[in-house]
């Protein structure tokens, strides 16, 4: 019997400090046993349990794209016990990952469609995975227009800044990067909150256009009416949830919203689905 609680051993290859407050670090992990990488076949939108022996496990969205081989990547905010310990670890250290877990963004449904990605703060991890996935030369023709609206408090709080700049320079993706405020005279992108920029830049809704939205509750609260005004149906708005988790496989009972487990039936739900579920997230 396969033990679904046993993590794969991975080694930290690289650690990148992402933000100026140093609270977000990206961990590039390589499988100790190369055969495990094949078993860990994932789709953008899934997550994994990162295991630090002696501290515990935390559910973290997979920030790398399945098209990137040889490593998996996670960006972790320093919050409590496990995430703080992770922030003290060094390249070469051994840890574990368990997964991939949960559903993913609905890639079959999105095939041939326009995709509008809306992200705020550090909830940009699986959105990065999605962008890299869609921009892969083998995949780009499978999707229509791609828009990305991504905001953070300040320029120094944006994740993956080099990649953002690279995407800005391309003509097959419409980037709308924004910050709440900045005194940087060289800032050449948008200034304003994500809902405001969404109102200005997001395309009008149609049956062929889906929005994927991840961010802090306050951003989602104010962006949703904007999407409503643009005509997005609730089955065309896709969200990824976070609830406290332990097992990640629908057994320990804590992450439920009604009859659904965020870990197993989610974390990705359409707004139409969420409308029929208790607001326990």
């Amino acid at each position, binding site marked *: 019997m396969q033990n*679904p609680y046993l993590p794969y051993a991975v080694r930290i290859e690289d650690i990148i400090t992402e933000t100026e407050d140093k609270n977000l670090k990206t961990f590039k992990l390589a499988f100790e046993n190369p055969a495990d990488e094949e078993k860990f076949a994932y789709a953008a939108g899934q997550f994994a349990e990162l295991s630090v*022996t002696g501290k515990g496990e935390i559910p973290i969205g997979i920030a790398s794209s399945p098209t990137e081989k040889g490593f998996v990547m996670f960006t972790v905010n320093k919050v409590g016990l496990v995430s703080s310990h992770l922030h003290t670890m060094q390249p070469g250290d051994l840890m574990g990952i368990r997964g991939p877990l949960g559903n993913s963004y609905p890639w079959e449904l999105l095939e041939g469609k326009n995709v509008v990605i809306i992200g705020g703060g550090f909830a940009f991890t699986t959105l990065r995975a999605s962008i890299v996935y869609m921009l892969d030369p083998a995949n780009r023709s499978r999707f229509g227009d791609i828009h990305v609206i991504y905001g953070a408090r300040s320029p120094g709080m944006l994740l993956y800044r080099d990649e953002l700049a690279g995407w800005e320079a391309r003509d097959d993706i419409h980037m709308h990067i924004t910050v709440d405020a900045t005194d940087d005279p060289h800032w050449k992108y948008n200034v304003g909150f994500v809902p405001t920029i969404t109102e200005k830049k997001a395309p009008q809704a149609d049956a062929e256009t889906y929005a994927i939205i991840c961010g802090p509750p306050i951003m989602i609260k104010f962006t949703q009416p904007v999407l409503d005004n643009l005509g997005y149906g609730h089955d065309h708005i896709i969200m990824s949830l976070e609830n*406290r988790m332990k097992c990640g496989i629908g*057994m*320990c*009972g*804590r992450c*439920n919203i009604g009859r659904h487990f965020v870990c197993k039936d989610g974390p990705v739900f359409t707004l139409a689905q969420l409308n*029929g579920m208790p607001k*326990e997230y």
Partner: protein
Amino acid sequence: MKVIYIEKAQWASGLEKAGDSFRLWGPVRRGQFYAFEELAGGQVPALDFRNTRLSAKGLVYPQSEKMFEYTLDPGQPDHDLLKEAQKDYSPRAVLGIRPCDADAFELVARNFDTPEYQDPYWLRAREAVTLVGLACAAPCSTCFCTSAGSGPFSTKGLDILLVDSGGNFLAQVATPKGEAFAQAAGWRQPADDAAAAEIDRQRQVAEARIDSHVATERLRQQDTLTLHAAPFWDDVAFACINCGTCTYLCPTCWCFDIQDETHGRQGVRLRNWDSCMFPLFTLHGSGHNPRGQKVQRVRQRFMHKLKYYVDKYENGIQCVGCGRCVRHCPVNIDIRKVCELMNSYTLAGDSCAVVS
């Protein structure tokens, strides 16, 4: 179903014999309550009990269980790697478990044995255990098993059901596992048709003695969000002190936590029973808590058992009617009353809103 006679004179000697190939557990009196404990050689289970205070779930699913072991000593080649904890899954038998508690294992299996994932700890322990049940001739006033999918003579989940008939037990052997246990004990005297009739007679008497029932037939058709928003939750939750007693005693509550525990450089990854009654159960690292208020947690317990589970598995309620939560709740919160509120709930004003 095959029925055999076990003369009471052969009960202790049979158990002694079975003890050669099975570890044995049974009810033992502790103060004013009974608890399942491992029986020493020659010890017989106390069968004069109504039911144990804690359910038998811990025999398959311990309150605290090692999952993995590890060392953090960098001098060791396997440091920081999790190793499967050593476990004893040798054959064992539980004697005197009540039918409702045995049925609870069938119910809980739906959580631990799924098409996508199988919980190896629960499944191996369940496989290792043979359940020798004792029919309830005298149910408590708080038992409502017959309307919760079980019954005082139910064989669901049991390998053998013992029915006390004075000088002997009539034993219904329900599974090959039960057959193997009876053989190991040397119990092989076949019973005649009269025995089956006697079991049936006793069953009818016992079922008629259960005068507590829950109505559940409307739970499925109820709208989840309507029930969730019903005004009675404040009343239901008012007196609850979130002690968690109800969930710990319950044979059908399965939620758990996972923790690493390190002493020096050696440690174990453990799982422990957890409870939806505790605020920490759902607390995010950010401080946000989707069920931060008591009323939300009390509602979760009942909605899970009487609505979410009902919808998900289409197999009745997540309760076998053992009545433990009713008997032991310090503030007398009664699942039977809550079930009635949920089952009969209609939106206020509905009767005037009917338009034909």
